[in-house]
């Protein structure tokens, strides 16, 4: 340890606080000042990788994350005096580190990167596209709440997926709305506007540019390089949309009525729900607490849960006084059932779910009916009569083309009852006109007589008996 060579003091204040050393094999070490007495200063010493050093210098990892990086089980503690005499050097298990020596959660490198690290930075920034996106990125950190430590700092994969979906939806809706507001006058043609918005939504889909799994941390950025074919006209909008999203949606104190009022002034209710709803949902999550910073950590925002009152102010319940009539369609289902006809089938939800072979939406459904009933009267035909049921402009129509009977009513029950009544009355009249009360004559010459032949039996209810 004593042969190490100092590269740079990374944090200093009238003396070094955090120093970078390397050994003769190019391995890197950090010395972190954690205590002192009248003669000695105590330092925590540990080896770090070039990637970790880069991440720290670029504010991607905190000092605490460097200490607890999972490539080691222990860390050295050493006391050094003014004459560089070393004593009390020993390894400490990370689990047994004195609590006061553990850096706070959000202690990042805040100074300018010393020139000596230019080549290190260049080595890790070989991908200029990724680097550009990172520098524009917002870093969302989702910390497990104190009362939800069952799985320690880990975040459920489903939760993480939903988190990303919510952020994406919010951002894309914001992009859509701001583009529409910025260019609706200039473009004019709604179809063209809509087409451009859809092209941009594909390009601006937030990109994941960094990830950390302990306390789920994700860097999300938006493409400013690719664009649509006529993208130059919208270059400034595209370049700034993520930054504006940060200002309008992320850098907001959702527990402040003033901030909520500003949102309400700038965004109509119908888009507020889609832009701000997903963010409120993330903020109010009972298991995780949201924190957002930018790449350089010049912006940082923590959030308190949003109260019901402010949520209601942000997303007022829209009362629609115009009751829209329900739109209905007719469907036919073909059900597989035991032999014996529909009487053997209980037509419940389970039957439909388990036995449907085929279903189809119809504007008109053919019905083949032999039995009709109305007001206590019953008609049975020898063969089924073809009828049609249709639903047109919210009117139920039941018709029998061969008898020229059509009934149209607002409800199915009304239409069906009246249709049955008219069918029975039709056949009663046929029987009266043809005088065929007894067995049907085998010789039929008129159409009325042919209808009469169709009757197998008629039982008249009290209504008809009284009239006759």
């Amino acid at each position, binding site marked *: 340890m004593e042969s190490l060579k100092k590269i740079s003091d990374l944090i200093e*204040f*009238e003396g070094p606080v955090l120093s970078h050393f390397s050994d003769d094999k190019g391995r890197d070490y950090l010395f*972190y000042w954690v205590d002192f007495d009248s003669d000695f200063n105590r330092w925590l010493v540990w080896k770090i990788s070039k990637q970790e050093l880069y991440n720290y210098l670029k504010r991607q990892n905190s*000092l605490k994350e460097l200490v607890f990086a999972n490539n080691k089980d222990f860390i050295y503690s050493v006391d050094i005096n003014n004459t560089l005499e070393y004593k009390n050097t020993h390894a400490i298990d990370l689990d047994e580190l004195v609590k006061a*020596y553990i*850096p*706070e959660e959000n202690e990042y490198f*805040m100074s*300018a990167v010393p020139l000596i690290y230019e080549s290190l930075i260049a080595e890790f920034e070989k991908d200029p596209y990724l680097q550009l996106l990172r520098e524009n990125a917002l870093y969302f950190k989702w910390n497990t709440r104190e009362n939800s430590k069952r799985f320690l700092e880990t975040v459920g994969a489903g939760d993480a997926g939903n988190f990303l979906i919510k952020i994406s939806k919010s951002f894309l809706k914001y992009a859509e709305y701001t583009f529409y507001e910025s260019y609706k006058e200039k473009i004019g043609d709604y179809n063209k506007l809509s087409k451009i918005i859809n092209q941009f939504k594909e390009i601006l889909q937030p990109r994941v540019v960094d990830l950390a799994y302990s306390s789920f941390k994700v860097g999300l950025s938006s493409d400013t390089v690719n664009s649509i074919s006529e993208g130059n006209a919208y270059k400034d909008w595209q370049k700034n949309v993520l930054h504006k999203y940060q200002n309008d949606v992320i850098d907001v104190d959702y527990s402040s009525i003033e901030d909520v009022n500003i949102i309400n002034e700038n965004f109509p209710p119908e888009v507020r729900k889609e832009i701000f709803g997903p963010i409120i949902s993330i903020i109010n999550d009972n298991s995780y607490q949201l924190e957002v910073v930018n790449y350089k950590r010049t912006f940082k925002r923590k959030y308190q849960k949003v109260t019901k009152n402010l949520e209601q102010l942000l997303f007022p319940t829209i009362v629609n006084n115009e009751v829209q009539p329900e739109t209905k369609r007719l469907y036919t289902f073909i059900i597989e059932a035991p032999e014996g006809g529909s009487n053997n089938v209980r037509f419940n939800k389970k039957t439909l779910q388990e036995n449907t072979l085929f279903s189809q939406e119809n504007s008109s459904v053919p019905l083949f009916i032999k039995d009709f009933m109305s007001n206590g009267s019953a008609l049975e035909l020898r063969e089924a009569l073809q009828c049609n049921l249709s639903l047109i402009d919210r009117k139920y129509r039941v018709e029998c083309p061969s008898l020229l009977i059509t009934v149209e009513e607002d409800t199915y029950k009304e239409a069906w009852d009246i249709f049955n009544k008219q069918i029975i009355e039709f056949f009663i009249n046929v029987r009266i006109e043809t005088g065929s009360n007894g067995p049907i004559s085998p010789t039929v010459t008129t159409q009325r007589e042919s209808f009469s032949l169709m009757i197998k039996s008629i039982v008249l209810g009290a209504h008809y008996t009284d009239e006759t």
Partner: protein
Amino acid sequence: MKCGYCALSFFTSKDAAINKYKSLPTRAQSLIGYNHIAEGELTDNDGVISEIHNDHFNLFEYISTDLKERFVLTSQLI
């Protein structure tokens, strides 16, 4: 060891001093133990003054320099 560690640290503004101090790890802040800001004016007669770097400079004061009378505590640091 850097020579600067033997000098007195100064900042060109109160905000610069506060920002620098707050950028230190909390543990370092508690070890250093500073808690107030003093303001005053320095002249070349007070000692050798380094170049200003990020609003910070060092004063290697002359043996005769006494800053106590010219600097007053103006606010708390934390």
